[in-house]
């Protein structure tokens, strides 16, 4: 165990007041509501905040909107898993004494944005081609002219390679297990967008988006916000809720656009999982709850392999018989995931919110028994970045 392990804790979490399809609120409103709710959850106020962390939205605008003047500001944007990275960065900043209360905020109107030209996480224009940003960006020269645009096609492109190496039918069965089990968890979460059960037939019969992906391999697109408050473990002891300590954290990224991914069956989580678990001094058997970024069924199954829960090519065996569903022996994505709960575009903040609630024992019908340690794996970009955290509720 590293000596930095456990020195900071998550003390507040919150979502925006409304989530899902919320055309009446802007992204900044989602940021602010989530931040308000997370600070209230912690028993802190805006004036306690001296570190501000956000992704994609400018920290300038976000801080201005909420009336915050940070001593430490971090706008690291490496995709939807940036927020797990912010916890890693906050751990460093708090230990260095640069700030004491770090507020990490996210808000996005992925579903209802009124921006005519949607710019996605990679800076690709989806609305009008002529509004494309800097043509010096490699995707604009080398991928977009071919219609290789956006996450569903790009992740599907990677999944085809896994099917080639490890078998199409085996892979398909794993994707289906994830889609179906994740929906079962969503039905236990009143905040989840998806309210109806999903059968295996529903999965296999859903329309093609980009082969090999069916519609039900792909995450939702929603409007929501989420926020997390981090402070030193010393300060955390006096706050409203019992602190959830950050036992391990690690970060990496390998590429920007999908055609530059070094190996389509390996994520950077292969390194970050090991580093975060080494920092925490825990092994796989110690993990009670696993939260992985399920932008697509494929990214969830691949994360389990690269985090070391099973070997390369073994996820289809590991996932058999709904073992990740409620009642199974490997609880996974218990909020219902990006696939069935919410996915604004940058979903990573919501992984941590659920892990913290599970570790506090606040999850009611979907509560994981005796949940003491959770592994959270943020993924970002086009399978580009990995930010892994190990969280625990022990003093």
């Amino acid at each position, binding site marked *: 165990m590293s000596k930095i392990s456990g020195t900071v804790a998550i003390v507040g979490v919150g979502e925006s007041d409304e989530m899902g399809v919320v055309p009446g609120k802007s992204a900044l409103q989602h940021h602010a509501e989530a931040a308000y709710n997370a600070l209230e959850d912690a028993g802190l106020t805006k004036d306690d905040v001296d570190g501000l962390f956000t992704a994609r939205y400018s920290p300038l605008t976000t801080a201005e909107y909420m009336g915050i003047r940070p001593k430490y500001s971090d706008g690291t944007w490496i995709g939807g898993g940036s927020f797990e990275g912010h916890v890693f960065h906050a751990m460093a900043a708090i230990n260095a004494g640069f700030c004491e209360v770090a507020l990490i905020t996210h808000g996005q109107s992925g579903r209802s944005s009124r921006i005519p030209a949607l710019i996605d996480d990679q800076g690709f224009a989806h609305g009008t*081609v002529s509004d494309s940003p800097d043509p010096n960006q490699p995707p604009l020269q080398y991928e977009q002219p071919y219609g290789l645009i956006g996450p*569903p096609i790009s992740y599907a492109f990677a999944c085809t390679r896994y099917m*080639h190496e490890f078998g199409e039918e085996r892979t398909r069965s794993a994707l289906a297990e994830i889609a179906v089990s994740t929906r079962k968890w969503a039905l236990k979460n009143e905040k989840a967008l998806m309210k109806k059960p999903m059968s295996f037939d529903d999965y296999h019969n859903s329309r093609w988006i980009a082969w090999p992906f069916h519609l039900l391999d792909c995450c939702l697109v929603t409007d929501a916000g989420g926020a997390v408050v981090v402070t030193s473990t010393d300060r955390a002891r006096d706050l409203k809720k019992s602190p959830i300590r950050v036992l391990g954290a690690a970060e990496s990224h390998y590429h920007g656009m999908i055609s530059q991914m070094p190996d389509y069956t390996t994520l950077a989580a292969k390194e970050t999982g090991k580093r975060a678990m080494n920092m925490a001094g825990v092994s796989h058997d110690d993990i009670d709850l696993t939260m992985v970024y399920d932008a697509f069924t494929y990214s969830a199954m691949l994360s389990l392999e690269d985090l070391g829960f099973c070997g390369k090519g073994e996820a289809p065996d590991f996932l058999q018989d709904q073992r990740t569903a409620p009642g199974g022996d490997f609880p996974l994505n218990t909020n219902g995931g990006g696939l069935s709960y919410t996915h604004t575009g940058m979903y990573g903040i919501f992984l941590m919110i659920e892990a913290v609630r599970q570790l506090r024992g606040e999850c009611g019908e979907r509560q994981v028994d005796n949940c003491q340690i959770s592994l959270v794996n943020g993924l970002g970009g086009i399978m580009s970045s990995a930010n892994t955290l190990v969280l625990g509720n022990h003093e």
Partner: protein
Amino acid sequence: MAEYYKPIPVPQPESEYYWKMAKDEELWLRHCNSCEKIYFYPRDICPGCYSRDTNWVRSTGKGILHTFSIVYRAPHPAFKDDVPYVVALVELEGGARIPTNLIEVEVTPEKIKVGMPVEVVFDRLTEDITLPKFRPVQVSPL
């Protein structure tokens, strides 16, 4: 010619030669004289060993299909008339991987296989821009 709404590459300082040669229906790649790596996309400094001693080499235009996806839901209205179409990654002789479209093929997973041999063909978009695309290697009848 009907109006073309899809993204058209805008050559950049490091890629001007690439696009100029594509217009002449030749595929040229960067090669590192230090580590001997041939790489895509064009960059003056080798992304493998960081050497500045790099040059251009002509590709045979032959390779194998490394991975692909068949697009059914257009990612942008400009591609709506093209679906289903194939986005592909070709591993060229020499090792560089290039994103492209696989064309002149029946668009179904039964007919498109990772590992199949493919060859470059050129699709002229505008006066200045020609896109390298790929098709299955044509076997000449005996």
